[in-house]
Protein backbone atom coordinates (compact mmCIF):
# COMPACT_ATOMS: atom_id res chain seq x y z
CA UNK A 1 0.00 0.00 0.00
CA UNK A 2 2.95 2.35 0.31
CA UNK A 3 3.23 5.04 -2.29
CA UNK A 4 6.36 6.76 -3.49
CA UNK A 5 6.73 10.04 -1.67
CA UNK A 6 7.11 12.75 -4.29
CA UNK A 7 10.51 14.38 -4.42
CA UNK A 8 10.29 17.93 -3.13
CA UNK A 9 11.33 20.28 -5.94
CA UNK A 10 14.39 22.37 -5.27
CA UNK A 11 15.14 24.13 -8.55
CA UNK A 12 13.12 27.15 -9.65
CA UNK A 13 11.65 25.53 -12.81
CA UNK A 14 10.54 22.49 -10.80
CA UNK A 15 8.92 24.71 -8.21
CA UNK A 16 7.13 26.64 -10.94
CA UNK A 17 5.89 23.40 -12.46
CA UNK A 18 4.45 22.35 -9.11
CA UNK A 19 2.88 25.75 -8.57
CA UNK A 20 1.20 25.67 -11.99
CA UNK A 21 -0.01 22.08 -11.69
CA UNK A 22 -1.34 22.62 -8.18
CA UNK A 23 -3.01 25.93 -9.06
CA UNK A 24 -4.80 24.23 -11.90
CA UNK A 25 -5.94 21.38 -9.61
CA UNK A 26 -7.32 23.92 -7.14
CA UNK A 27 -9.03 25.89 -9.93
CA UNK A 28 -10.42 22.72 -11.45
CA UNK A 29 -12.32 22.15 -8.23
CA UNK A 30 -14.39 25.25 -9.03
CA UNK A 31 -15.09 24.02 -12.53
CA UNK A 32 -16.47 20.81 -11.04
CA UNK A 33 -18.65 22.99 -8.80
CA UNK A 34 -20.19 24.58 -11.90
CA UNK A 35 -21.26 21.20 -13.22
CA UNK A 36 -22.25 19.81 -9.84
CA UNK A 37 -24.23 22.86 -8.84
CA UNK A 38 -25.36 24.45 -12.09
CA UNK A 39 -28.12 26.29 -10.24
CA UNK A 40 -25.62 28.38 -8.30
CA UNK A 41 -23.69 29.51 -11.35
CA UNK A 42 -26.88 30.18 -13.31
CA UNK A 43 -28.22 32.45 -10.57
CA UNK A 44 -24.87 34.26 -10.44
CA UNK A 45 -24.96 34.74 -14.21
CA UNK A 46 -28.61 35.76 -14.43
CA UNK A 47 -28.73 38.26 -11.55
CA UNK A 48 -26.93 41.02 -13.51
CA UNK A 49 -29.09 40.19 -16.55
CA UNK A 50 -32.15 40.78 -14.40
CA UNK A 51 -30.70 44.13 -13.29
CA UNK A 52 -30.14 45.10 -16.93
CA UNK A 53 -33.78 44.41 -17.72
CA UNK A 54 -34.90 46.27 -14.60
CA UNK A 55 -32.78 49.37 -15.11
CA UNK A 56 -32.99 49.30 -18.88
CA UNK A 57 -36.74 49.05 -19.16
CA UNK A 58 -38.20 50.15 -15.79
CA UNK A 59 -36.02 53.12 -14.85
CA UNK A 60 -34.48 53.82 -18.22
CA UNK A 61 -37.33 56.00 -19.41
CA UNK A 62 -37.10 58.23 -16.38
CA UNK A 63 -33.43 59.08 -16.69
CA UNK A 64 -32.47 61.53 -19.38
CA UNK A 65 -28.99 61.59 -20.75
CA UNK A 66 -27.14 64.87 -21.16
CA UNK A 67 -26.56 66.19 -24.64
CA UNK A 68 -28.63 63.52 -26.26
CA UNK A 69 -31.97 62.56 -27.59
CA UNK A 70 -33.80 62.58 -24.28
CA UNK A 71 -35.63 59.48 -23.16
CA UNK A 72 -34.31 57.54 -26.09
CA UNK A 73 -34.71 54.08 -24.60
CA UNK A 74 -32.09 52.52 -26.83
CA UNK A 75 -29.64 55.22 -25.88
CA UNK A 76 -30.12 54.66 -22.19
CA UNK A 77 -29.33 50.98 -22.61
CA UNK A 78 -26.30 51.91 -24.68
CA UNK A 79 -25.28 54.07 -21.78
CA UNK A 80 -26.23 51.52 -19.16
CA UNK A 81 -24.37 48.44 -20.37
CA UNK A 82 -20.76 49.50 -19.58
CA UNK A 83 -21.92 50.26 -16.03
CA UNK A 84 -23.52 46.84 -15.85
CA UNK A 85 -20.33 45.18 -17.08
CA UNK A 86 -18.34 46.90 -14.33
CA UNK A 87 -21.02 46.01 -11.80
CA UNK A 88 -20.74 42.33 -12.74
CA UNK A 89 -17.01 42.57 -12.09
CA UNK A 90 -17.66 44.20 -8.70
CA UNK A 91 -20.07 41.41 -7.74
CA UNK A 92 -17.20 38.98 -8.25
CA UNK A 93 -15.66 40.37 -5.07
CA UNK A 94 -18.37 38.65 -3.03
CA UNK A 95 -17.85 35.35 -4.85
CA UNK A 96 -14.12 35.40 -4.11
CA UNK A 97 -14.67 36.34 -0.49
CA UNK A 98 -17.28 33.61 -0.10
CA UNK A 99 -15.04 30.88 -1.53
CA UNK A 100 -12.01 31.95 0.51
CA UNK A 101 -13.87 32.23 3.82
CA UNK A 102 -15.77 28.96 3.27
CA UNK A 103 -12.54 27.05 2.64
CA UNK A 104 -10.96 28.61 5.72
CA UNK A 105 -13.98 27.89 7.94
CA UNK A 106 -14.33 24.29 6.74
CA UNK A 107 -10.67 23.52 7.37
CA UNK A 108 -9.94 22.98 3.67
CA UNK A 109 -7.35 25.76 3.72
CA UNK A 110 -5.60 24.07 6.66
CA UNK A 111 -5.67 20.76 4.81
CA UNK A 112 -3.98 22.44 1.82
CA UNK A 113 -1.40 23.99 4.12
CA UNK A 114 -0.59 20.65 5.72
CA UNK A 115 0.03 19.06 2.30
CA UNK A 116 3.26 19.08 0.30
CA UNK A 117 1.73 21.28 -2.40
CA UNK A 118 2.96 24.66 -3.63
CA UNK A 119 1.78 27.21 -1.02
CA UNK A 120 1.10 29.81 -3.71
CA UNK A 121 -1.32 27.46 -5.45
CA UNK A 122 -4.05 28.05 -2.88
CA UNK A 123 -4.47 31.70 -3.91
CA UNK A 124 -3.31 31.29 -7.50
CA UNK A 125 -5.87 28.54 -8.05
CA UNK A 126 -8.51 30.79 -6.53
CA UNK A 127 -7.63 33.63 -8.90
CA UNK A 128 -7.63 31.38 -11.97
CA UNK A 129 -11.05 29.97 -11.06
CA UNK A 130 -12.53 33.39 -10.31
CA UNK A 131 -11.13 35.00 -13.44
CA UNK A 132 -12.63 32.18 -15.48
CA UNK A 133 -16.04 32.61 -13.91
CA UNK A 134 -15.83 36.38 -14.35
CA UNK A 135 -14.89 36.00 -18.01
CA UNK A 136 -17.92 33.76 -18.40
CA UNK A 137 -20.11 36.28 -16.55
CA UNK A 138 -18.85 39.10 -18.76
CA UNK A 139 -19.55 37.08 -21.92
CA UNK A 140 -23.12 36.49 -20.79
CA UNK A 141 -23.52 40.20 -20.09
CA UNK A 142 -22.13 41.19 -23.50
CA UNK A 143 -24.57 38.78 -25.13
CA UNK A 144 -27.35 40.22 -22.99
CA UNK A 145 -26.30 43.73 -24.05
CA UNK A 146 -26.37 42.80 -27.72
CA UNK A 147 -29.88 41.43 -27.27
CA UNK A 148 -31.22 44.63 -25.64
CA UNK A 149 -29.71 46.82 -28.33
CA UNK A 150 -26.29 47.77 -27.00
CA UNK A 151 -23.49 47.93 -29.59
CA UNK A 152 -19.87 48.99 -29.68
CA UNK A 153 -19.22 51.74 -32.20
CA UNK A 154 -15.46 52.00 -32.19
CA UNK A 155 -12.97 49.46 -33.50
CA UNK A 156 -12.99 45.85 -32.37
CA UNK A 157 -9.56 46.43 -30.86
CA UNK A 158 -10.90 49.21 -28.67
CA UNK A 159 -13.78 47.01 -27.60
CA UNK A 160 -11.28 44.32 -26.60
CA UNK A 161 -9.29 46.92 -24.70
CA UNK A 162 -12.45 47.85 -22.82
CA UNK A 163 -13.02 44.17 -21.94
CA UNK A 164 -9.42 44.04 -20.77
CA UNK A 165 -10.00 47.03 -18.47
CA UNK A 166 -13.05 45.34 -16.99
CA UNK A 167 -11.14 42.14 -16.30
CA UNK A 168 -8.29 44.20 -14.86
CA UNK A 169 -10.73 45.73 -12.39
CA UNK A 170 -11.99 42.25 -11.53
CA UNK A 171 -8.42 41.02 -11.04
CA UNK A 172 -7.66 43.80 -8.59
CA UNK A 173 -10.89 43.17 -6.66
CA UNK A 174 -9.94 39.49 -6.48
CA UNK A 175 -7.22 40.39 -3.99
CA UNK A 176 -9.60 42.51 -1.96
CA UNK A 177 -11.84 39.44 -1.82
CA UNK A 178 -9.02 37.12 -0.79
CA UNK A 179 -7.91 39.55 1.90
CA UNK A 180 -11.43 40.05 3.28
CA UNK A 181 -12.17 36.33 3.01
CA UNK A 182 -9.12 35.57 5.15
CA UNK A 183 -10.04 38.34 7.60
CA UNK A 184 -13.60 37.31 8.43
CA UNK A 185 -14.29 34.52 10.88
CA UNK A 186 -17.20 32.96 9.04
CA UNK A 187 -18.75 32.96 5.57
CA UNK A 188 -21.82 34.69 7.02
CA UNK A 189 -19.86 37.94 7.16
CA UNK A 190 -19.99 38.00 3.35
CA UNK A 191 -23.58 39.19 3.68
CA UNK A 192 -22.28 42.49 5.03
CA UNK A 193 -20.14 42.98 1.92
CA UNK A 194 -23.09 41.99 -0.27
CA UNK A 195 -25.02 44.91 1.22
CA UNK A 196 -22.13 47.39 1.29
CA UNK A 197 -21.40 46.84 -2.37
CA UNK A 198 -24.65 48.61 -3.32
CA UNK A 199 -23.78 52.06 -1.96
CA UNK A 200 -20.40 51.76 -3.69
CA UNK A 201 -22.23 50.89 -6.88
CA UNK A 202 -24.67 53.80 -6.63
CA UNK A 203 -21.95 56.22 -5.54
CA UNK A 204 -20.50 56.10 -9.02
CA UNK A 205 -21.32 57.23 -12.51
CA UNK A 206 -22.98 53.90 -13.28
CA UNK A 207 -26.59 55.10 -13.17
CA UNK A 208 -26.58 58.89 -12.73
CA UNK A 209 -24.21 61.77 -13.40
CA UNK A 210 -21.98 62.69 -10.45
CA UNK A 211 -22.58 66.34 -11.44
CA UNK A 212 -26.18 66.05 -10.29
CA UNK A 213 -25.10 65.01 -6.79
CA UNK A 214 -24.15 67.41 -3.94
CA UNK A 215 -20.58 68.59 -4.51
CA UNK A 216 -18.74 66.36 -2.04
CA UNK A 217 -20.78 63.31 -2.95
CA UNK A 218 -20.18 63.95 -6.63
CA UNK A 219 -16.43 64.15 -5.98
CA UNK A 220 -16.49 60.80 -4.18
CA UNK A 221 -18.45 59.29 -7.06
CA UNK A 222 -16.05 60.60 -9.64
CA UNK A 223 -13.05 59.24 -7.74
CA UNK A 224 -14.73 55.88 -7.22
CA UNK A 225 -12.52 53.33 -9.02
CA UNK A 226 -15.65 51.85 -10.52
CA UNK A 227 -16.45 55.21 -12.19
CA UNK A 228 -13.06 55.32 -13.88
CA UNK A 229 -13.57 51.91 -15.45
CA UNK A 230 -17.17 52.68 -16.42
CA UNK A 231 -16.28 56.03 -18.02
CA UNK A 232 -13.26 54.56 -19.82
CA UNK A 233 -15.20 51.61 -21.22
CA UNK A 234 -18.05 53.93 -22.37
CA UNK A 235 -15.44 55.91 -24.27
CA UNK A 236 -13.80 52.81 -25.77
CA UNK A 237 -17.10 51.23 -26.79
CA UNK A 238 -18.27 54.57 -28.16
CA UNK A 239 -21.29 54.60 -25.86
CA UNK A 240 -22.77 57.84 -24.46
CA UNK A 241 -21.29 59.06 -21.17
CA UNK A 242 -21.63 61.97 -18.77
CA UNK A 243 -18.44 63.71 -19.78
CA UNK A 244 -17.55 66.22 -17.05
CA UNK A 245 -15.02 69.01 -16.69
CA UNK A 246 -13.01 67.76 -13.71
CA UNK A 247 -9.53 66.29 -14.09
CA UNK A 248 -10.69 62.88 -12.98
CA UNK A 249 -13.53 62.86 -15.54
CA UNK A 250 -11.12 63.90 -18.27
CA UNK A 251 -8.59 61.19 -17.45
CA UNK A 252 -10.81 58.17 -16.94
CA UNK A 253 -8.78 55.98 -19.28
CA UNK A 254 -5.61 56.59 -17.30
CA UNK A 255 -7.41 56.05 -14.01
CA UNK A 256 -9.08 52.85 -15.24
CA UNK A 257 -5.57 51.40 -15.52
CA UNK A 258 -4.12 53.15 -12.48
CA UNK A 259 -6.85 52.38 -9.94
CA UNK A 260 -6.74 48.57 -10.31
CA UNK A 261 -2.95 48.73 -10.10
CA UNK A 262 -3.19 50.71 -6.87
CA UNK A 263 -5.77 48.30 -5.45
CA UNK A 264 -3.58 45.35 -6.42
CA UNK A 265 -0.47 46.99 -4.98
CA UNK A 266 -2.26 47.48 -1.66
CA UNK A 267 -4.23 44.24 -1.34
CA UNK A 268 -1.82 41.72 -2.84
CA UNK A 269 0.80 42.20 -0.09
CA UNK A 270 -1.97 42.43 2.50
CA UNK A 271 -3.40 39.09 1.34
CA UNK A 272 0.01 37.42 1.32
CA UNK A 273 0.70 38.78 4.79
CA UNK A 274 -2.66 37.60 6.04
CA UNK A 275 -2.06 34.16 4.57
CA UNK A 276 1.33 33.94 6.24
CA UNK A 277 -0.19 35.04 9.52
CA UNK A 278 -2.29 31.88 9.53
CA UNK A 279 0.82 30.14 10.84
CA UNK A 280 1.36 32.60 13.69
Amino acid sequence: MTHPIPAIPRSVPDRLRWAMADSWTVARRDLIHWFRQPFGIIVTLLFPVMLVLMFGYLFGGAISLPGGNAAGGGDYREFLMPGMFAMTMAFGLEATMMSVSTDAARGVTDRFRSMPMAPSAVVLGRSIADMMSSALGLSVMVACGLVVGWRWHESFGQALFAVGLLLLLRFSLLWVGIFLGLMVKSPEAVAAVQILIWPVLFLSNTFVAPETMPGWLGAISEWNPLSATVAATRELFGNPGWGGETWIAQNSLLMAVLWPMVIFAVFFPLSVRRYRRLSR
Partner: protein
Amino acid sequence: MEVVVESARFAVFAEGLEKRYGKVKALDGLDLRIPGGKVCGLLGPNGAGKTTAVRILSTLLRPDGGRAEVAGFDVVRQAAQVRCSIGLAGQQAAVDEILTGRQNLETFGRLYHLGVREARKRADDLLERFGLADAAGKQAKNYSGGMRRRLDLAASFILSPPVLFLDEPTTGLDPRGRNEVWEAVRSLVAGGTTVLLTTQYLDEADQLADRICVIDAGRAIEEGAPEDLKSRVGGDRIDVVVRSAAELPVAARVVGRVCGAEPEIDREARRLSAPVMDRLSALTGTVRALDDAGVDAEDIGLRRPTLDDVFLRLTGHRAGEKEEEVAA
Protein backbone atom coordinates in the same frame (compact mmCIF):
# COMPACT_ATOMS: atom_id res chain seq x y z
CA MET B 1 24.86 13.76 19.15
CA GLU B 2 22.96 11.98 21.86
CA VAL B 3 19.90 14.19 21.37
CA VAL B 4 19.79 13.44 17.67
CA VAL B 5 19.95 9.71 18.29
CA GLU B 6 17.23 9.96 20.89
CA SER B 7 14.80 11.90 18.70
CA ALA B 8 15.43 9.54 15.79
CA ARG B 9 13.90 6.73 17.78
CA PHE B 10 10.56 8.52 17.92
CA ALA B 11 8.07 9.13 15.13
CA VAL B 12 6.92 12.22 16.97
CA PHE B 13 9.30 14.04 19.26
CA ALA B 14 8.62 17.36 20.93
CA GLU B 15 10.73 19.10 23.50
CA GLY B 16 9.73 22.18 25.46
CA LEU B 17 7.22 23.39 22.87
CA GLU B 18 5.94 26.88 23.61
CA LYS B 19 3.23 28.95 22.01
CA ARG B 20 1.87 32.25 23.26
CA TYR B 21 -1.17 34.20 22.14
CA GLY B 22 -0.72 37.61 23.68
CA LYS B 23 -0.40 36.88 27.39
CA VAL B 24 -2.00 33.46 27.19
CA LYS B 25 0.36 30.53 27.04
CA ALA B 26 -1.32 27.93 24.86
CA LEU B 27 1.70 25.64 25.18
CA ASP B 28 4.03 25.98 28.12
CA GLY B 29 6.91 23.58 27.55
CA LEU B 30 5.17 20.53 26.14
CA ASP B 31 7.25 17.35 25.85
CA LEU B 32 6.00 14.48 23.76
CA ARG B 33 7.60 11.23 22.61
CA ILE B 34 5.76 8.73 20.45
CA PRO B 35 7.63 5.62 19.26
CA GLY B 36 6.97 4.51 15.68
CA GLY B 37 3.82 2.47 15.12
CA LYS B 38 2.21 3.50 18.40
CA VAL B 39 -0.97 5.42 19.08
CA CYS B 40 -0.71 8.24 21.56
CA GLY B 41 -3.86 9.79 22.95
CA LEU B 42 -3.44 13.44 23.89
CA LEU B 43 -6.08 13.88 26.54
CA GLY B 44 -7.15 17.20 27.94
CA PRO B 45 -10.03 19.62 28.41
CA ASN B 46 -10.89 22.47 26.06
CA GLY B 47 -8.11 25.02 25.98
CA ALA B 48 -5.46 22.65 27.32
CA GLY B 49 -3.38 23.14 24.17
CA LYS B 50 -4.19 19.91 22.31
CA THR B 51 -5.10 21.56 19.02
CA THR B 52 -2.19 24.00 19.25
CA ALA B 53 0.17 21.04 19.68
CA VAL B 54 -1.27 19.25 16.65
CA ARG B 55 -1.13 22.42 14.55
CA ILE B 56 2.54 22.93 15.39
CA LEU B 57 3.43 19.31 14.69
CA SER B 58 1.58 19.39 11.36
CA THR B 59 3.46 22.59 10.31
CA LEU B 60 0.36 24.81 10.39
CA LEU B 61 1.72 26.90 13.26
CA ARG B 62 5.20 28.03 14.20
CA PRO B 63 6.21 27.40 17.80
CA ASP B 64 7.54 30.30 19.86
CA GLY B 65 9.96 28.03 21.65
CA GLY B 66 11.22 24.47 21.87
CA ARG B 67 11.59 22.10 18.97
CA ALA B 68 9.77 19.21 17.39
CA GLU B 69 10.54 16.48 14.91
CA VAL B 70 8.04 14.40 12.99
CA ALA B 71 9.20 11.31 11.10
CA GLY B 72 12.74 12.55 11.76
CA PHE B 73 12.22 16.00 10.19
CA ASP B 74 12.23 19.32 12.00
CA VAL B 75 8.76 20.86 11.79
CA VAL B 76 10.11 24.38 11.25
CA ARG B 77 13.24 23.92 9.14
CA GLN B 78 12.06 20.89 7.16
CA ALA B 79 8.35 21.67 6.92
CA ALA B 80 8.09 20.44 3.32
CA GLN B 81 9.51 17.01 4.23
CA VAL B 82 7.22 16.81 7.24
CA ARG B 83 4.21 17.52 5.01
CA CYS B 84 5.18 14.54 2.84
CA SER B 85 5.21 12.30 5.90
CA ILE B 86 1.99 13.24 7.67
CA GLY B 87 -1.75 13.11 7.33
CA LEU B 88 -3.99 15.51 9.23
CA ALA B 89 -7.65 15.18 10.06
CA GLY B 90 -8.83 18.23 11.95
CA GLN B 91 -11.82 18.87 14.17
CA GLN B 92 -14.14 18.98 11.20
CA ALA B 93 -14.18 17.06 7.95
CA ALA B 94 -12.06 19.26 5.68
CA VAL B 95 -13.58 18.07 2.44
CA ASP B 96 -15.26 19.88 -0.44
CA GLU B 97 -19.00 19.50 0.10
CA ILE B 98 -19.98 19.95 -3.51
CA LEU B 99 -17.51 17.40 -4.89
CA THR B 100 -18.29 13.70 -4.71
CA GLY B 101 -16.28 11.45 -2.42
CA ARG B 102 -14.21 10.22 -5.35
CA GLN B 103 -13.66 13.72 -6.74
CA ASN B 104 -12.47 14.87 -3.34
CA LEU B 105 -9.90 12.09 -3.09
CA GLU B 106 -8.79 12.56 -6.70
CA THR B 107 -8.32 16.29 -6.18
CA PHE B 108 -6.29 15.81 -3.00
CA GLY B 109 -4.36 12.97 -4.68
CA ARG B 110 -3.40 15.33 -7.50
CA LEU B 111 -2.28 17.89 -4.92
CA TYR B 112 -0.09 15.18 -3.39
CA HIS B 113 1.39 15.01 -6.91
CA LEU B 114 0.12 11.60 -7.89
CA GLY B 115 -0.48 11.22 -11.61
CA VAL B 116 -4.04 11.35 -12.96
CA ARG B 117 -4.35 7.60 -13.22
CA GLU B 118 -2.55 6.96 -9.95
CA ALA B 119 -4.79 9.45 -8.12
CA ARG B 120 -7.89 7.73 -9.49
CA LYS B 121 -6.67 4.29 -8.49
CA ARG B 122 -5.70 5.50 -5.03
CA ALA B 123 -9.12 7.14 -4.61
CA ASP B 124 -10.83 3.85 -5.45
CA ASP B 125 -8.59 1.90 -3.05
CA LEU B 126 -9.29 4.30 -0.22
CA LEU B 127 -13.04 4.47 -0.86
CA GLU B 128 -13.09 0.69 -0.67
CA ARG B 129 -10.94 0.59 2.41
CA PHE B 130 -12.96 3.17 4.33
CA GLY B 131 -16.29 1.63 3.37
CA LEU B 132 -17.33 4.47 1.07
CA ALA B 133 -17.31 2.62 -2.25
CA ASP B 134 -21.10 2.69 -2.50
CA ALA B 135 -21.21 6.43 -1.84
CA ALA B 136 -18.23 7.27 -4.09
CA GLY B 137 -20.39 9.11 -6.64
CA LYS B 138 -22.44 11.03 -4.09
CA GLN B 139 -21.66 14.62 -3.12
CA ALA B 140 -19.98 14.90 0.27
CA LYS B 141 -22.74 17.19 1.53
CA ASN B 142 -25.10 14.20 1.37
CA TYR B 143 -22.83 12.08 3.57
CA SER B 144 -23.58 11.34 7.21
CA GLY B 145 -21.26 12.80 9.84
CA GLY B 146 -19.42 9.50 10.19
CA MET B 147 -19.01 9.09 6.44
CA ARG B 148 -17.66 12.60 6.10
CA ARG B 149 -15.06 11.98 8.79
CA ARG B 150 -14.09 8.73 7.11
CA LEU B 151 -13.69 10.57 3.81
CA ASP B 152 -11.57 13.08 5.68
CA LEU B 153 -9.47 10.24 7.11
CA ALA B 154 -9.12 8.73 3.65
CA ALA B 155 -7.90 12.08 2.31
CA SER B 156 -5.26 12.28 5.05
CA PHE B 157 -4.13 8.80 4.14
CA ILE B 158 -3.53 9.26 0.41
CA LEU B 159 0.26 8.97 0.72
CA SER B 160 0.02 6.25 3.42
CA PRO B 161 1.98 8.61 5.65
CA PRO B 162 3.98 7.13 8.51
CA VAL B 163 2.46 9.64 10.94
CA LEU B 164 -1.18 10.64 11.27
CA PHE B 165 -2.60 13.48 13.37
CA LEU B 166 -6.22 13.22 14.39
CA ASP B 167 -7.60 16.24 16.19
CA GLU B 168 -10.75 15.22 18.07
CA PRO B 169 -11.78 12.88 15.26
CA THR B 170 -15.19 12.03 16.69
CA THR B 171 -16.36 15.39 18.07
CA GLY B 172 -19.97 16.00 17.12
CA LEU B 173 -20.64 12.44 15.95
CA ASP B 174 -23.38 10.15 17.19
CA PRO B 175 -22.32 6.80 18.74
CA ARG B 176 -22.65 5.01 15.43
CA GLY B 177 -20.46 7.55 13.64
CA ARG B 178 -17.94 7.32 16.46
CA ASN B 179 -17.71 3.56 16.09
CA GLU B 180 -17.27 3.90 12.33
CA VAL B 181 -14.39 6.32 12.79
CA TRP B 182 -12.81 4.20 15.52
CA GLU B 183 -12.91 1.17 13.22
CA ALA B 184 -11.24 3.16 10.45
CA VAL B 185 -8.51 4.39 12.79
CA ARG B 186 -7.90 0.87 14.06
CA SER B 187 -7.39 -0.42 10.54
CA LEU B 188 -4.81 2.32 9.89
CA VAL B 189 -3.00 1.51 13.11
CA ALA B 190 -2.90 -2.17 12.19
CA GLY B 191 -0.95 -1.10 9.10
CA GLY B 192 1.80 0.37 11.28
CA THR B 193 0.91 4.06 11.17
CA THR B 194 1.95 6.18 14.12
CA VAL B 195 -1.04 8.15 15.36
CA LEU B 196 -1.32 11.19 17.57
CA LEU B 197 -4.92 11.55 18.58
CA THR B 198 -6.39 14.34 20.66
CA THR B 199 -9.57 13.80 22.57
CA GLN B 200 -11.64 15.06 25.44
CA TYR B 201 -12.96 11.60 26.16
CA LEU B 202 -11.15 9.11 28.32
CA ASP B 203 -12.98 6.19 26.75
CA GLU B 204 -11.90 7.25 23.26
CA ALA B 205 -8.25 7.36 24.30
CA ASP B 206 -8.81 4.06 26.09
CA GLN B 207 -10.31 2.49 22.95
CA LEU B 208 -7.57 3.54 20.57
CA ALA B 209 -4.38 4.54 22.34
CA ASP B 210 -1.34 2.54 23.47
CA ARG B 211 -0.27 5.43 25.60
CA ILE B 212 -2.10 8.40 26.99
CA CYS B 213 -0.58 11.78 27.61
CA VAL B 214 -2.71 14.01 29.81
CA ILE B 215 -2.19 17.68 29.14
CA ASP B 216 -3.32 20.68 31.10
CA ALA B 217 -2.51 24.36 30.65
CA GLY B 218 -0.12 23.60 27.79
CA ARG B 219 1.96 21.04 29.63
CA ALA B 220 2.03 17.25 29.87
CA ILE B 221 1.11 16.33 33.42
CA GLU B 222 0.96 12.58 33.15
CA GLU B 223 1.90 9.89 30.72
CA GLY B 224 1.28 6.19 30.71
CA ALA B 225 -0.61 3.19 29.39
CA PRO B 226 -4.41 3.55 29.62
CA GLU B 227 -4.54 0.73 32.19
CA ASP B 228 -2.07 2.51 34.49
CA LEU B 229 -3.97 5.73 34.19
CA LYS B 230 -7.29 4.09 34.87
CA SER B 231 -5.99 2.18 37.85
CA ARG B 232 -4.75 5.47 39.23
CA VAL B 233 -8.18 6.98 38.78
CA GLY B 234 -9.76 3.87 40.21
CA GLY B 235 -12.09 2.40 37.62
CA ASP B 236 -15.85 2.77 38.09
CA ARG B 237 -17.29 5.23 40.55
CA ILE B 238 -20.40 5.68 42.59
CA ASP B 239 -22.05 9.11 42.80
CA VAL B 240 -24.40 10.05 45.62
CA VAL B 241 -26.38 13.29 45.65
CA VAL B 242 -27.95 14.22 48.99
CA ARG B 243 -30.89 16.54 49.63
CA SER B 244 -29.05 18.98 51.88
CA ALA B 245 -25.39 19.85 52.21
CA ALA B 246 -25.63 19.21 55.97
CA GLU B 247 -25.92 15.51 55.25
CA LEU B 248 -22.67 15.39 53.29
CA PRO B 249 -20.32 14.49 56.20
CA VAL B 250 -22.52 11.61 57.35
CA ALA B 251 -23.01 10.37 53.81
CA ALA B 252 -19.26 10.63 53.18
CA ARG B 253 -18.54 8.48 56.22
CA VAL B 254 -21.08 5.85 55.13
CA VAL B 255 -19.91 5.71 51.51
CA GLY B 256 -16.27 5.67 52.63
CA ARG B 257 -16.97 2.63 54.80
CA VAL B 258 -18.83 0.71 52.05
CA CYS B 259 -16.37 1.47 49.27
CA GLY B 260 -13.20 1.46 51.34
CA ALA B 261 -11.98 4.77 49.96
CA GLU B 262 -12.27 8.42 50.93
CA PRO B 263 -15.00 9.97 48.70
CA GLU B 264 -14.49 13.29 46.89
CA ILE B 265 -17.03 15.89 47.88
CA ASP B 266 -18.55 18.55 45.64
CA ARG B 267 -20.40 20.87 48.08
CA GLU B 268 -22.17 22.97 45.48
CA ALA B 269 -23.68 19.97 43.75
CA ARG B 270 -24.28 18.24 47.14
CA ARG B 271 -22.56 15.26 45.57
CA LEU B 272 -19.92 12.82 46.67
CA SER B 273 -18.09 10.38 44.52
CA ALA B 274 -16.02 7.32 45.36
CA PRO B 275 -14.23 4.59 43.42
CA VAL B 276 -15.81 1.14 43.57
CA MET B 277 -14.38 -2.34 43.03
CA ASP B 278 -17.52 -4.39 42.52
CA ARG B 279 -20.27 -2.39 40.89
CA LEU B 280 -23.33 -4.21 42.15
CA SER B 281 -22.31 -4.87 45.72
CA ALA B 282 -21.16 -1.28 46.06
CA LEU B 283 -24.51 0.00 44.79
CA THR B 284 -26.70 -2.22 46.98
CA GLY B 285 -24.37 -1.75 49.95
CA THR B 286 -24.44 2.02 49.62
CA VAL B 287 -28.21 2.20 49.25
CA ARG B 288 -28.71 0.04 52.33
CA ALA B 289 -26.09 1.80 54.46
CA LEU B 290 -27.39 5.28 53.59
CA ASP B 291 -30.90 4.17 54.43
CA ASP B 292 -29.72 2.76 57.77
CA ALA B 293 -27.92 5.99 58.58
CA GLY B 294 -31.08 7.97 57.77
CA VAL B 295 -29.45 9.93 54.94
CA ASP B 296 -31.94 11.25 52.40
CA ALA B 297 -30.33 10.54 49.02
CA GLU B 298 -31.65 12.35 45.99
CA ASP B 299 -29.77 10.27 43.47
CA ILE B 300 -27.39 7.34 43.54
CA GLY B 301 -25.66 6.10 40.41
CA LEU B 302 -22.73 4.13 39.03
CA ARG B 303 -20.63 5.52 36.23
CA ARG B 304 -17.39 5.10 34.35
CA PRO B 305 -14.57 7.46 35.28
CA THR B 306 -14.59 10.65 33.27
CA LEU B 307 -11.89 13.05 32.23
CA ASP B 308 -12.95 15.11 35.23
CA ASP B 309 -12.00 12.28 37.56
CA VAL B 310 -8.61 11.90 35.91
CA PHE B 311 -8.01 15.59 36.30
CA LEU B 312 -9.13 15.74 39.85
CA ARG B 313 -6.76 12.89 40.62
CA LEU B 314 -3.78 14.16 38.70
CA THR B 315 -4.01 17.89 39.25
CA GLY B 316 -6.24 18.38 42.23
CA HIS B 317 -8.54 20.60 40.16
CA ARG B 318 -11.32 20.00 37.74
CA ALA B 319 -10.81 20.06 34.00
CA GLY B 320 -10.99 23.60 32.68
CA GLU B 321 -10.72 25.19 36.14
CA LYS B 322 -7.71 27.21 37.13
CA GLU B 323 -5.81 26.04 40.15
CA GLU B 324 -6.30 29.36 41.95
CA GLU B 325 -10.05 29.05 41.63
CA VAL B 326 -9.97 25.78 43.49
CA ALA B 327 -7.60 27.09 46.12
CA ALA B 328 -9.82 30.13 46.73
